[in-house]
């Protein structure tokens, strides 16, 4: 192995590194600056709509992990056959989104937020009304283009960080 090119390659490398010193770093200071995630993000939790769900259990059949449990029962109070328990084990869920895709009544949405970690293991299993959409659990536009239009646009690295370089 000869020491080819007598050090010129090293000098070239060092010029590239020193140029980076003067550029804007590709960094996002997380809790103070938050980037907008994709409109179709498959976030942490599942959002369910009780109004539209008919208890057909297509989502439970589509889930590869078997994380959805659905029990329907007759409700003598208002003479309807409705969903009694809809339970999702968010720990088993791999956020694949197949359930959202499979639902024929558009009753399931992926969550939009990604900061929904829990402190207790029991809180990971969510039932019935914990799954409804709320301010802390917004719905994302995965397979729901009407929701995706209303969400803010995603920040893209190609547009946000501009390298300070002269145009050739």
């Amino acid at each position: 192995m000869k020491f080819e090119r007598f050090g010129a390659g090293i000098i070239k490398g060092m010029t590239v590194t020193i140029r980076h010193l003067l550029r804007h770093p590709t960094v996002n200071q997380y809790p103070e600056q938050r980037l907008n995630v994709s409109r179709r993000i498959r976030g942490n939790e599942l959002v369910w709509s009780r109004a539209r769900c008919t208890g057909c259990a297509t989502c439970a059949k589509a889930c590869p992990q078997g994380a959805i449990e659905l029990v329907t029962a007759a409700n003598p109070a208002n003479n309807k056959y409705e969903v009694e328990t809809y339970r999702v084990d968010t720990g088993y869920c791999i956020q694949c989104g197949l359930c959202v895709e499979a639902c024929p009544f558009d009753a399931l949405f992926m969550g939009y937020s990604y900061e929904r970690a829990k402190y207790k293991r029991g809180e990971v299993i969510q039932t019935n009304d914990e799954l409804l959409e709320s301010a802390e659990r917004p719905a994302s536009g995965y397979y729901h283009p009407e929701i995706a239009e209303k969400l803010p646009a995603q920040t893209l690295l190609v547009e946000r960080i501009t390298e300070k370089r002269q145009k050739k």
Partner: protein
Amino acid sequence: MAIVDLTFNSRLPMQVVPPDWPGNNYWWHWLFFTVVLIAFVLMMVMGAIYIERRGLGRMQSRLGPNRTGPFGLLQPVADAVKVLLKENIVPDSADKVVHWLAPVVAFAPVVMIFAVVPFQNGALLADLNIGILYIVAISSVSTVGVFMAGWSSGNKYSLLGAMRNMAAVVSYELPLVLSIVGVVLAAGSLSLNQIVLTQNIPFILLQPLGFLIFFAAACAEINRSPFDLMEADSEIVAGFHTEYSGMKFAMFYLVEYAEAIAMSAIITTLFLGGWRGPWLPPWLWFIIKTLIVFFVMVWTRTTLPRVRIDQLMALAWKFLLPLALINLFITAIQVLVWPQALPWLAVIINIAVMFVLVIIWSRLFRLGWGRVEV
């Protein structure tokens, strides 16, 4: 012949001021400078750690630490506190006394190097007239500390790492010292204060090849990238300081940065003109130049991959040593026959000689072995 006639810059424009600050009694001077040196080393190491982490971060297109204190300035303090609070684990099969003594033996010589480095004209602890020889001798003692650390850990991988380190340091001593001799010939004295005073033209211009060799050899001596195979996730082992934790590990960490600052300070004194400079206080120039040289070390660390151990040795013995000898030879000839009135022509000729030598020599030597038949 008087020693003055043999140098490039025969007229000393400034008088040497004997070290005697704040005056009348040597003991005050000694006490003051001892305190100043220890504080200086610790402060500069903290500054060095900060510059390295932020500089490394910015060159890698990210920020360095910026949460502890404004702009992350308290990060070295946080590191020190963390390391002080850790448990001090000594392995069972370790040699206790040597294990305890090794960081001390590694650290003490590094602070002692600063005793002869001039911060200002006459502002040094002791103006030894064998200054640079003292530095070369003392800096080799810290290698003994490293070897003690490797031996006393009772771990064969640490021993391996320590022996590799010793081999590398011993190999790189030769080009280091030979390039220093070039500077000594140009300045005419071994005393560091005199060397600075004779630099009307900084010696980096008069001895460019010497500077390159010294820089490479210094990086190898202090185990910095690209020669840091002794410590940075060194394939199997973590090097000689595997079995150290707590404050002893902090001492080794400190030794690495303090040696880097020491080498930067020596480079500044020998090649860049020490404390000389216009309209700022001289000690400030010294600090600025030291930090610039340290930044160049950080810059090479960011850019270059590591060399292998046999390539390291080949670089020392086959590339740097012959070049250092040739440099010495050429410097000696120039000192004898070059007329005093044309130093700038010597600068141009030396730079041209450097390019020619590096280009020619790099075609002639082979960097390390290839595959061994098994």
